[in-house]
């Protein structure tokens, strides 16, 4: 599904060379739910941007869905992002001037879907996140959790091969965080691969697989027993998130 081989990313200024990623290797299989953790400055965000084709890298190869996406043109990578990847951002990144339906439509329009098809998908996606009745609302009229669900709907509407989630619950309180997390798990169960970047080890533990990045390299990974992990960790996650929110 996703395969990164010896990927390096170097930021150069006149004075210093910073290695954001060094010989980074990662394989993600179809249908996995992978959590990526690591301390601040470890290269999490760089990994996320590279995985999402939001920025390029210096060395290495990156295969997505069997295609080498290492050196795609700007237009081609835009198309890959549009068709294969669904993004969920920490800050939701909903467009404030557009209502929910219009927000969800944004990637569909870039894909060139017909109005009818767009309508079908928007409705379906909103239904999926449980906000079917609020199509005409503006983002500011919703709570944070609802906004994130809209963002998830936007990511789902294009029926992507995998979802890239960047601290999806970072701006949410515990109750909402749990709802969003459950939603992601449901999505994963219906077959969508998910890669979630988070700084929260408790949250990460709910994923099937954990990857820790330290100094731009994969440090270790742990495989959890999917079902057992999920049921066992509910309460502890809540506690942790609640603590984090203070």
């Amino acid at each position, binding site marked *: 599904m996703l395969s990164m081989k010896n990927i390096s990313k170097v930021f150069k200024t006149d004075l210093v060379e910073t290695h954001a990623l060094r010989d980074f290797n990662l394989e993600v299989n179809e249908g996995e739910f992978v959590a990526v953790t690591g301390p601040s400055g470890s290269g999490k*965000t760089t990994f*996320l*941007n590279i995985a*999402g*084709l*939001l*920025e390029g890298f210096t060395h290495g190869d990156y295969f997505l869905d069997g295609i080498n996406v290492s050196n795609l043109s*700007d*237009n081609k990578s*835009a*198309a890959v*992002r*549009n*068709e294969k990847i669904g*993004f969920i*951002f*920490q*800050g939701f*990144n909903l*467009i*404030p*001037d*557009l*209502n929910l339906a*219009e927000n969800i*439509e*944004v*990637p569909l*329009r*870039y*894909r*060139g879907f017909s109005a009818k098809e767009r309508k079908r998908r928007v409705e379906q996606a909103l239904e999926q996140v449980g906000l079917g009745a609020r199509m005409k609302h*503006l983002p500011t009229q919703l709570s944070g959790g609802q906004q994130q669900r809209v963002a998830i709907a*936007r990511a789902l509407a*294009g029926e992507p091969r995998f979802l890239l989630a*960047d601290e999806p619950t*970072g701006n949410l309180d515990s109750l909402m965080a749990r709802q969003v997390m459950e939603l992601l798990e449901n999505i994963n169960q219906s077959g969508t691969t998910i890669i979630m970047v988070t700084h929260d080890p408790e949250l990460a533990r709910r994923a099937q697989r954990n990857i820790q990045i330290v100094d731009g390299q994969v440090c270790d990974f742990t495989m959890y027993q999917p079902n057992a992990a999920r049921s066992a960790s509910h309460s502890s996650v809540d506690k942790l998130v609640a603590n984090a929110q203070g």
Partner: protein
Amino acid sequence: MLHIKPILSSLLRSKSGPLLLLLQMILSVAIVANASFIIAERLNLMARESGIVESEVFDFSIYHFDKSTDLVAQDKRDLELLRAIPGVIDVAPTSMAPLSGGGWSSNFTLGPEERAKSTPNTGMYMSDEHFINSLGLKLVEGRNFYPQEITTELLEDGGKMIVTKAFVDKVWPNESALGKSVYMGTQHYVVIGVVERLQTAWVDNSNLEFSSVLSVNYPADYKRYLVRAKPSDIARLKGVIPELLHKEYPSRVVEDFTTIAERRIEAYRDHELMATVLTMMVVLLLLITSLGVTGMVMFNIQRRTKQIGTRRALGAKKRDIISYFLVENYLLCLLGGGIGVLLAIQLGQQLMSLYSLPMLEIIYPLLTVVGLFAVTTLAVYLPARKAAKISPATATRSV
């Protein structure tokens, strides 16, 4: 891919900014349309041909202040002298200089009786058989004067006359003018020739094209002469002529050497001034409007950096971002242009009712809107290209 609906709803939801730009566009279209209409009108006026070989002709005046001068004999001698100067193609006496703003005009009647139908007010040149050649006029019908037809005063039984085609078309449409008579009181003049074109002295008069040349070379203490020469000789002749004429007879002032080209500049000075100031206005207005558009786009790009990054992350190509800004401003153009056209027509009507301006032609507001689109494209494209360079990774950056 023009995503009009979401752009429109986004526009509708944002406050005051686009509204102000819209207002600016509306006013600009109204002003630019009317200004460019006036400019075009003035340029058309200035483009009218006088019928004269303007680059080769100049005129000057002789003022005889000694009352004892035999004006008829002196005029005859002067003409002979002038025509003999090397470099001079031809010389004619005249009662007025074309395009000069001063001279003779009259409403002729078409019969001797007082109540007879009269012609439009017509410029009156009084000259001799050298007039046509001196100005380089084109005779299209009939003939020139014969030397023996030239008189030195306005005779009771009149004389011969050459008129312009415009005059003929107005007074005797679809008829030959040759042999027709016009009257001034009881004097009558018989038309013997028609020239294609000859303007009068008054460029702002609607009867500018109605000229007549009478076969009279009357004596006067203040008299004007038309000289035709090669353009390269004119400067020299301006020095030679006064010297020669003073040597011939000193009690006079020879002055006011003016080429027809100079008379044209002088005659149309106010129009050219108007056109220049208005052109300045149009250019600056378009500049200001485009700067306004650019400023607004720049502001919006800054405000929407995150949004643009998100769009890019969600699969927008660079050209999608550029076209987003273009479409957004085109929508404003369309609306602003539409209302602007209406306002332009209103303004045109106001100007028409207050001042003697003709009615605004609808093509001018329409062309202005086209111009607005062109200027907007440029004004949006440059900053929008910068917007397209915003990295999609902006989307993952927290605040």
